[in-house]
């Protein structure tokens, strides 16, 4: 067996700059720590200053440099409030980015009244409740709430999305209490201390110097348009598998730590349903699909299969208990979807989203 030499690091006081004893050592120690924390403090302040000045995510409303990150919550709240959309919307779609391509025009044709797609990035059950309550506080009186439920909307270990945590109005709507400005500010500043934010900073500066094409935008009814991808598709140059490595990675990380359905989030989902019923609205819940390749990877690498089974059992029970329509569209066969109807490993395109709307309407008849 190899004879491993166990090594200790010799500590040379002269080389480290310390000498002397007693109080002098304590002074040195405190000064060294002080220098370290001062260094960290200066760097944090510099980073926060850049974050406020450049403001790539529009958190601080500085407005000097381009806002390059889409905060769907902020944008859709603004759209919903503007042009009295909130008054005319007979239906509201709640969900994550995987429900963003549900076309309000298709829904209007299917159900007979105007819809607003209020799906927001990485939405979980608390987002549905916050958005519904906020919409009602404006005076909206929807007749139908269509909830596109991702499995990880009921994630049991991940906290709320930071964009919800930073949203004062949604927080107040969710809790019924005035949101803590200090907590919101803290979350906003903390989220700027990330590599992702640094990349956004750099991209905003680059956009300022060399403006690039818009990747996507929301129409007045909340419908998402992938300007760039749709353009590439039309030109026959779009490949949905180009981003597979990044996309699959994202989903694996989402589900790796999910061990079960969160009781708190189930409660929040049920609160949306009961409050909507009390307000005279109908609710439809549908489990959002993933393409077969993605499901296979998740089943191999995470507890996705068991989670999906548990979600189906839960939703079946929920349907009976709260008298709500529930549809399992977690596989493409369930809504007669296609394996080609995807923009990437998790997001349906217009065609498959349209098929989902047709299936929802057919199920309601």
């Amino acid at each position: 067996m190899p004879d491993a030499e166990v090594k200790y690091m010799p500590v040379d006081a002269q080389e480290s700059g310390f000498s002397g004893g007693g109080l002098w050592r304590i002074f040195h120690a405190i000064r060294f720590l002080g220098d370290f924390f001062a260094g960290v403090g200066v760097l944090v302040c510099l980073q926060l200053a850049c974050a406020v000045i450049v403001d790539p995510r529009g958190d601080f409303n500085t407005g000097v440099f381009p806002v390059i990150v889409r905060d769907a919550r902020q944008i859709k709240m603004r759209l919903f409030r503007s042009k009295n959309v909130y008054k005319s919307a007979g239906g509201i779609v709640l969900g994550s980015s995987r429900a963003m391509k549900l076309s309000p025009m298709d829904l209007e044709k299917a159900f007979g009244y105007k819809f607003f797609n209020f799906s927001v990035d990485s939405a979980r059950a608390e987002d549905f409740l916050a958005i519904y309550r906020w919409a009602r506080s404006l005076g909206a009186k929807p007749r139908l709430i269509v909830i596109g439920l991702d499995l990880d909307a009921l994630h049991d270990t991940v906290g709320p999305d930071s964009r919800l945590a930073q949203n004062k109005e949604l927080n107040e709507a969710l809790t019924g209490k005035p949101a803590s400005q200090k907590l919101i500010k803290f979350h906003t500043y903390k989220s700027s201390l990330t590599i992702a934010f640094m990349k956004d900073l750099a991209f905003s500066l680059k956009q300022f110097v060399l403006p690039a094409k818009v990747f996507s935008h929301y129409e007045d009814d909340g419908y998402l348009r992938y300007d760039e991808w749709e353009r590439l598709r039309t030109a026959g140059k779009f490949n949905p598998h180009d981003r597979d490595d990044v996309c699959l990675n994202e989903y694996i990380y989402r589900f790796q730590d999910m061990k079960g359905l969160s009781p708190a989030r189930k409660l929040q989902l049920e609160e949306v349903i009961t409050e909507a019923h009390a307000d005279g609205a109908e609710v439809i819940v549908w489990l959002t699909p993933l393409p077969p390749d993605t499901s296979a990877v998740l089943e191999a690498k995470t507890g996705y299969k068991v989670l999906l089974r548990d979600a189906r059992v839960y939703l079946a029970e929920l349907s009976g208990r709260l008298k709500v329509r529930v549809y399992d569209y977690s596989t493409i066969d369930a809504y007669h979807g296609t394996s080609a109807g995807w923009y990437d490993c998790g997001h349906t395109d217009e065609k498959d989203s349209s098929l989902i709307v047709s299936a929802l309407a057919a199920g309601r008849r």
Partner: protein
Amino acid sequence: MVFNSDIFLFAFLPVVFTLFWLARTKRERYILLTLSGYVFYGYWNWRFCFLLLFSSLVSFFAALKIGQSGSRAKARYWMIGSISVDLALLGFFKYYNFFAINAARVFPDAMIPLFNIVLPVGISFYTFHTISYIIDVMDGRVKPTNNIYEYLTYVGLFSQLVAGPIVRFRQIEDDLEHVDRPIQPDYMARGLGFFVIGLVRKVVIADSIARLVNPLLASQHPLSLAGAWLAALGYTFQLYYDFSGYSDMAVGLGYLFGIHIPQNFNSPYRALGIGDFWRRWHISLSSWLRDYLYIRLGGSRSGVFHTNVNLLVTMLLGGLWHGANWTFIVWGAYHGILLILDRIFKAPLSRLPALAYQTGTFLLVIVGWVLFRADNIHSALRWLGWMAGIGTGTQGAPVTLALLVAACLAAINTVPEAWDLRLGGTRKWAYAYSLVFFVAYLFMNGKDSVFLYYQF
């Protein structure tokens, strides 16, 4: 709780550090370190603190009995009893279901029950800590301590509790005896240096590679030749930077409290031969296996055949220690065979040019890591097949991974380990550490990453 988390960095560590240096007596510091260890451990699951305490108390009292025994035979009973308890706990929590499932395949009518067993974090590590203590007491290398607080501190020291290094009592006995000494600024500076370097290795390098390698290996599509090699190389570096980063952090934390934790990695990918590799990789484990298993089995004292058998058995059990899966057992056997061949062909191999010897060793280690990383033997063989050009597909690897792998390849041959750096304690060094820490925090903020060895 993991070292790269907000709760550890901004709550747990500052509080424990401050209270430790405010405490004056040995007893106060022992109690504080013990309690902090249990809080650290209990953050994951408080129920298993009782298991940790039970294991510690059994070995503590058994060691005292060994010390008090009039005869060696009686002392042996206490040693065997204590080790049996430790191994029984480890065996049940870690291996019961594995053996039950495999036994059921061989004896399908046996109706062997399976249990929903939660694997206690770090059980493999703290079990080896207690076993090493008992054996050292038995062999007279260490006097059994009659200070329960000192012993609980040793077993429950949070810096190495859940993922090593495997520290023997005699390695830190002197530091524990002098735990009441005043603050040593040079230790503190060195500790901070080790900690931030370890943090960067883990959250910047290892986690960045993991984000690229994991989807490759999760994909259902066969990898291309290049993709398979990049995945293998990526994992090779990911594992090294993850584990050595953690070890550096553990060493750093030890220094912050005046405790010398021994070196655990010494540029293993520069090894010349597999024997040399095991003198450089997870040193605390390889030396433990050597001293408490290989030598006990007879070592190299009973002829070539028995030496080879002892090597193979030691490495098989070393592989099994890593996890309850056939891949770990095969990996252990693979290294056992390589060690045997290394001994047999030592002379001709040592005449090879150093670069060829190092490259050959590195390639053999990579093959081993494929076995280590794969979910099962079938996946491992499939991956190795892709690396040999058999059954390859078109799934390549992102360019970023290729660049990272190239950078790591250059780094392992040029950048020294933290142990070889002269980490200073002047103002400039404090600012340097703050910059390194800040960069690491940007990478880790908002992401929860667990150490690869966390569940061992």
